[in-house]
């Protein structure tokens, strides 16, 4: 995974600023709570939700198990339908392929429909370096781009912005990029949407090259699918002469029929709609309609490595609905930027350290960015057991072990900075394996209880900065039990 967000501090530090930012917290709280309630209602309407969830999980697991076969089938079908397939092992290769394809057209601008894969690889920046401007056309993406900001949510990248902030961004920035914002623009949603529409229309009609992602790719037919709410994506997919789609290899489904499951679960989980307003599907090229040239760039970028882990691979089932973000109490307080990746929230906490490895400070801290409350697992429409994967990755951080990186099996050493914790865990385990030692410790604590500080030194300071510790009782339970019920003291 490329370094769109390199040099990020570890999650706890990155989150601290967000926790203290009242506007941000208010925006996030309002947005997540609203969508949370709506999602619950939309899901409750479906009587066979549990079966749909199980079906989605099974289809994805089956596909991942036979990914090699389905990818080859997809390539055959896309080629037969007049498209060209390119394989990209990592971000750099993918960017190089896209830049070369754009250069062939001789164009210096492209329009984009929201694509997480291109954000993951930092395509806009790579194109910029080649003198090509990429214009985001999804409304929320546009806000992020104009605001020289980073997305903070999978589905609503500008979730951290309120209407007033958006109006200010439009007024200030639109003229730099094309058609300026109308005079006297207010912060009513209708006016903001209209301003964006007029601004974008100009781009759509001019652009010769479109770049997209895809929610699904169907191996059986070579079809790509984009699911969206605004219709801007459809413009991007149909108006330009050349269409380049950059898609992660895990986005594949074996058959057309499989799509049925996800077209039910995705909209309800993400926007709490029964059906999303626009579902666009394209298969290769046709003479009378749509782009004349179609290129599909299949992106690996850590996905095959992720597949090698029998627990962690379930993260590749993700359909990017963002339901887990909206219910996550940690995301709600920390905001999306703290996760240091285009994939924030619970899914980001398990996906980024797998795609990028756990070597950087931010990636090693992400598996701990959760209280393991399990709310994310409960809502995930493909039943990814996020807490299970988090614990798996924590093991990787503190104990090391075998992993696959760039296709090679390597043995990771335990991450640095955990020595004190490891020693404490070991000591605790030693004492807990000896009831006598535990008891001696308890007695010592009871006897010295008058001396205990209510604030702690070392790593405990973080706790006692905002909470009081309970007083140590005069008599631990086991002493009381022995005094009142007798019983053999264990060694």
């Amino acid at each position, binding site marked *: 995974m490329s370094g769109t967000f390199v040099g990020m501090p570890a999650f706890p530090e990155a989150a601290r600023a967000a926790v203290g930012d009242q506007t941000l917290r208010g925006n996030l709280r309002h947005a997540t709570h609203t969508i949370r309630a709506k999602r619950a209602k939309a899901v409750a309407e479906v009587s066979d939700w549990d079966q749909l969830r199980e079906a989605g999980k099974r289809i994805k697991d089956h596909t991942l198990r036979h990914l090699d076969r389905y990818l080859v089938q997809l390539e055959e079908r896309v080629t037969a339908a007049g498209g060209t397939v390119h394989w990209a092992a990592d971000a750099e290769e993918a960017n190089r392929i896209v830049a070369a394809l754009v250069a062939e057209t001789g164009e210096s601008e492209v329009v984009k429909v929201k694509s997480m894969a291109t954000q993951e690889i930092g395509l806009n920046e790579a194109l910029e370096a080649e003198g090509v401007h990429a214009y985001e056309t999804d409304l929320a993406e546009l806000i992020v781009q104009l605001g020289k900001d980073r997305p903070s949510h999978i589905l609503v990248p500008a979730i951290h912005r309120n209407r007033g902030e958006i109006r200010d961004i439009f007024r200030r920035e639109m003229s730099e990029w094309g058609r300026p914002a109308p005079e006297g623009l207010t912060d009513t949603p209708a006016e903001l949407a209209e301003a964006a529409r007029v601004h974008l229309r100009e781009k759509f009609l001019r652009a010769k090259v479109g770049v997209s992602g895809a929610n699904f790719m169907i191996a059986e037919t070579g079809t790509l699918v984009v699911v969206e709410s605004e219709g801007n994506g459809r413009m991007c997919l149909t108006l330009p002469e050349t269409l380049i789609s950059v898609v992660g290899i895990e986005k594949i489904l074996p058959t057309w029929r499989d799509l049925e499951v996800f077209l039910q679960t995705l909209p309800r989980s993400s926007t709490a709609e029964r059906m999303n307003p626009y579902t666009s599907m394209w298969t290769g090229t046709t003479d009378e309609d749509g782009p004349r040239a179609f290129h599909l760039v299949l992106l690996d970028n850590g996905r095959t490595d992720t597949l090698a882990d029998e627990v962690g691979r379930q993260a590749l089932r993700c359909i990017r609905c963002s339901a887990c973000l909206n219910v996550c109490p940690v995301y709600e307080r920390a905001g999306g930027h703290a996760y240091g990746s285009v994939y924030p929230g619970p899914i980001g906490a398990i996906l980024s350290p797998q795609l990028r490895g756990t070597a950087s400070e931010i990636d090693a801290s992400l598996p701990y960015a959760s209280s393991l409350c*399990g*709310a994310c697992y409960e809502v995930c429409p493909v039943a990814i057991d996020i807490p299970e994967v988090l*614990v798996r990755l924590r093991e990787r*951080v503190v104990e090391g072990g075998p992993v696959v990186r760039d296709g090679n099996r390597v043995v990771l050493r335990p991450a640095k900075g955990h020595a004190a914790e490891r020693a404490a865990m070991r000591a605790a385990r030693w004492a807990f394996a000896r009831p006598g030692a535990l008891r001696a410790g308890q007695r010592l604590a009871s006897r010295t209880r008058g001396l205990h500080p209510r604030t702690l030194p070392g790593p405990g300071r973080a706790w006692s900065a905002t909470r009081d510790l309970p007083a140590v009782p005069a008599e631990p*339970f086991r002493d009381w039990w022995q005094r009142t019920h007798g019983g053999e003291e264990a060694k």
Partner: protein
Amino acid sequence: MRVALFLTCVNDTLYPDTGRAVVKLLTRLGVEVDFPMAQTCCGQAHYNTGYRHEAEPLARHFSDVFGEYEAIVTPSGSCGAMVRELYPRMGERARAEGRGDTLAATLAPVVPKTYELTEFLVDVLGVTDVGAYYPRKVTYHPTCHGLRSLGLGDRPRRLLDAVKGLELVELPGADECCGFGGTFALKNPDVSAAMGADKVRNAESTGADVLCAADNSCLMHIGGTMARLETELRPVHIAEILASTEEEPAV
């Protein structure tokens, strides 16, 4: 019926009142309670922080100590979930890693016999009215592991509803995590504290005197936050409410 009380290391050391309440309650209901003195810790903190290999000997020790009993009762949703949900997973992993079936076989006997207290009362003893008396306004926080891993559902609420004198008030945002999460509270102190503060404010908005839960770890975090926020609310473990009677009311 004779059961083993698994009190958990946190309860034993910091909250002995909860253990005494469980003994009093179960004895009153005609259950013979034993406290195996060799018990220590289920290994949850180790496991969830990533120290699986440190957790394994603790899980084995747990099975050695409790394996013989008919039922194991614990007043902690998260430690109950550790045994019921994660012990089988530890066994499977050992098997997948080619370490054979011994860990799975050692841990298997305790898994189905371990019950969280409210679950034991409602499902095994079949009671919801335990004859308790507690004249206070109470709001209930369902802890995450009790709620999602063990699926306690409305069992605690039904038990509280049957307590004489008790007025149960709904907690807004009840299903949201309080922010404790074991070592999460240490590793992400700012986020954890913000979650705790919201939980306390929600509880305050109910006008209750007492916030009750079935897990002292969460209550330690919530209670510590309450002390800092200087609220009138008090954290109380559900066992202490259920053990309270007209003759011997809890303070």
